[in-house]
């Protein structure tokens, strides 16, 4: 059992995963940092050869910007990347934009 637990910890993108809810709760803490998150793909949107998609974990989701083509909606993924701030539009009028994850790698997640 112990060996199995250790093996699970060694799986990429599982043992070191950060909860999307934790990132949403205090996004500025994570800006510029590399994180791995696990979730289910929604709203997969190709943009030329690249893509954006949402990664949902329960009630929260995080938008991922990717240099790769989009994964299929409904796929469960582990995505590693860097958290970035987004300011689009008249931020002087207090429009808060969600932070994004800029993907560096992805792999299937259980």
């Amino acid at each position, binding site marked *: 059992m112990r060996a199995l637990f250790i093996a699970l910890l060694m799986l990429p993108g599982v043992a070191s995963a950060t909860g999307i809810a934790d990132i949403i709760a205090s996004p500025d803490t994570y800006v510029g940092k590399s994180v791995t998150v696990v979730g289910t793909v929604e709203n997969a949107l190709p943009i030329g050869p690249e893509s954006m998609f949402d990664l949902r974990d329960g009630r929260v*989701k995080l938008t991922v910007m990717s240099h790769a083509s989009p994964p299929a909606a409904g796929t469960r993924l582990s995505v590693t990347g860097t958290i970035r701030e987004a300011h689009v539009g008249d931020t002087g009028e207090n429009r808060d*934009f969600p932070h994004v994850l800029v993907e560096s790698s992805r792999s299937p997640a259980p």
Partner: protein
Amino acid sequence: MRPTLFFVALAALSTPAGAFIDSNLAVSPGAQASGGGCYATPLVPGLLDMLTLVDPEWAAIDVGSHLPPFSDPITLHGTVALAKINEGGDLPADHESDDQNTFITLDAADQGFVATGNVGPHGEDGGQLEVEWEIGKYPLFAWAGRGDRLTGVGRWIWDCGHPDPDPPGSCSVTMTQPCAIDADCASPTCSGCTSGETCVGVTWNYHSELHPPQAVAVTRTGGYKHFAHDVRAGHRSTRTDVWISPDGGGAGDTCELTHQANPFSLLGIECHPLSHPVANVNASDFTFDIPLPPRPPKNPRPPRVRAFDRTPNGLPRAKVLTTFVDGPAPTVHVVVKTSAPVHGQLPSKVGKTIIAGWRPDPTPVTHLRVAVTAIEIVNALKPVTPAVALMQRCSVTTSQDCSMSACPTGESCLTLGGPIPGWTVFLEVNGDWRALPDLGTVSAPVTVPQNLTYDLGVLTGDTLHLHATGHSLDCREGQLYGLSFQRALSLYGFFPGATCLNTESHNIGTFDVDLAGPDYGSGGTSASFVTPSVGGNGGHCSATTSQLCLVDADCPSGESCVGTGGAYKLHYTITKLPLR
């Protein structure tokens, strides 16, 4: 929508002089009929959800007998609290230029145009209403200053981009679950919710705005001459500057205002060049009243009124009719005949300046001259490493790097990204606005000579008000205005395009000076000033304090950028002159 709710909504829309209009109406089923109204996001949205907030970004509050996005214009009246540009910039995909924002305290009779969101926790000071018109569409002579009276005709809209659900609602059965929209009360957002739950009790804080206007009349009281509109020092009078135009930029264009069933479609729509304005300035004349100064004692004569044309060259010059309306608060009623052809052609863009006052009027007026001689850029607020690396692309064959090979015949080679030079600064003296010239190449500390002269007549009790608004341009505002999402992504590519869009202009600090009489800072004759801006971005490196910076990355490794603000100083002289 249930019939009762529908009639309540109608009643709210039909009583502009009553209580504030409920911002929750912005997302009501009635408002959203036929693609009208605003569309909200989940309580915890992702970045992609933000497209929903600009689908459209502005929705008519009352479409009346029209189908969205069309509506009848409204007329509102109020007193100006503040005018400025939107320093952070706007969404370039649906703007051709940055917005100018005029904050109005509406008259009591027009308070019904103010929404609950304007006065709530996410509101404006004192429940003001914003009048927004793109800078490129709104000539400076008709910009307002603090205390001016403004009559505006235009599009009464919900600002859909700022929903601010506060407090949020709760799911109808699982009441411990906070929500903004019904989807927050369904799987997967709410795993414990039961099927069919809705979100109830949310308070939306959408603002109502006049955005864009199609006509404004701005009235200021001071000393003016009747023989020329460009001489501002004279006898006590009112000066009313009028600008009429159907061109409202993105916020006034049918293509930009049309709701898409799937907001992701916005990434593929091309509305530029904008060519379908929703406003029709020929449907009716522009009418307004000019308040006159108090009638001087023992002066039975009617006021003297003079209208100067400010219409762009080559366009029909609409006629102006003025009628004196006597009484305890005498006014001049004005009709600008935009519905009538001039030599067979209907007016389009129309400018007027109307000077009205009593003759004689012995009220003392102090003649002041403010001469701006230089702007000293202390910190240009330019990052050492540009947000987007310099690249060159052909204008049509956008995948071709034209730094390597020439573009196909007929195409130009566009320079994208790289260092973004330039500042934009507007300076008003008691509502007389000018753009500071020669700042387009600013990229390092420099003193740029200026030769701006403001002549004005100030009445006893008024102050001399100097106020600037501006910013140091970065990628979004320096390069993206007038480019659709589709065009920008095609030119820049996804990541550089998103990065450019994410790189807003930088805050150059506040310059806002009030000087009281009797000398207004002149010392009785003349005095010179060098006044730094206060606050804003930029500073110096934490250890290498001689090194200016905008962000930490501008400093040597291990150092941070210590914010000091004060990115510029204005050099000017105030002179008190004898009345001519």
